[in-house]
């Protein structure tokens, strides 16, 4: 220990060099190390946000003729308020039905219709009442059900009428 040996007082006046132990007490250091370790472990967020890639079609230029599509092959999905999903097949006198985002909802319909209809085209129309979450959810469903042809388009007044009429 750190003591200064005083000259007199003791009988043997031999100067003894005290051997200090080379071992140091590591406990405080370990405490600190683990404190830091805990802090960094807790604050590190491991789940980096994921991204979803989305491709939008180029705007239709004047004079462009869109390729004709058989209306019976078109599945229209309309995202309404309160997480409601309206869907119908075709264009003339469509039967509008309503479903939701659960596994038994839109996913089942997509899979079923995709099996029934060869080269099905899905049109996604989001109403102004829908939320961003609905859009991401439906795009996600497209990924899950492995849809090849889908596009996000603006809602038309006709579609709005259809929803109103269906009263679902």
């Amino acid at each position: 220990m750190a003591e200064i040996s005083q000259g007199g007082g003791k009988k043997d006046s031999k100067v003894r060099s005290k051997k200090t132990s080379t071992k140091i007490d590591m406990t405080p250091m370990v405490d600190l190390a683990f404190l830091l370790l805990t802090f960094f472990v807790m604050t590190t967020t491991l789940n980096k946000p994921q991204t979803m890639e989305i491709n939008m079609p180029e705007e239709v230029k004047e004079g462009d003729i869109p390729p004709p599509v058989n209306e019976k092959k078109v599945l229209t999905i309309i995202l309404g308020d309160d997480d409601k999903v309206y869907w119908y097949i075709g264009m003339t006198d469509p039967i509008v039905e309503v479903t939701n985002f659960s596994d038994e909802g839109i996913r089942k319909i997509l899979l079923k219709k995709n099996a029934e209809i060869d080269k099905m085209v899905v049109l996604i129309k989001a109403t102004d009442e829908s939320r961003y979450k609905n859009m991401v959810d439906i795009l996600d469903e497209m990924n899950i059900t492995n849809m090849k042809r889908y596009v996000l388009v603006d809602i038309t007044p006709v579609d709005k009428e259809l929803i109103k009429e269906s009263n679902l």
Partner: protein
Amino acid sequence: MGKVKVHRASTSIDMTPMVDLAFLLVTFFMLTATATPDEPVTVDMPTSVSEIPIPDINVLTISVGKDGKVYFNMDGKYNREALLGKIGERYNIQFTEEETKVFSVLSSTGIPIGQLKQFLSMEREDRSAINQPGIPCDSVNNELKDWIIFSRMTNPKLRIAVKGDSEANYPVIKTVIKTLIDNKVFRFNLITNMEKGV
């Protein structure tokens, strides 16, 4: 008769390997930890099953808050400096060196360009306290468009990511997407969280 000697083991153990390991882990976590800059808005992202990680550099993030406010962010200190110069030129605003410096290290901003100079000359505390009005992106005054154009001019490798709140209304997202399409950005990313329970 031999006496049975009880060998007393020392109670102090050698802590060196444990300390080695502890410091190794500390170093690892310290180096991997990225300081998250304080964002003016917390965005609660929707979940998806998509597993494409977001790139670390060359990202332009357009955040849409719950209330429909639009925020802009681009990474890269030097690119930001160049960007502010270009924006200043376009809007005839002279930014001082000090203001440029402040802007280069800023995170998301939702300040209309007209108020940007004043915002940048504020004290740090005042800046975080202010309620940012969001970047105008309607058809009359679309400043988001200019941000996108000039960002892509400063950094052509830029990837554009939209970070929207799940509760954000669709019309705002539609305006943002429309702005992107108008600027010939047809491919962009939507930032989402990992789906829970998958």
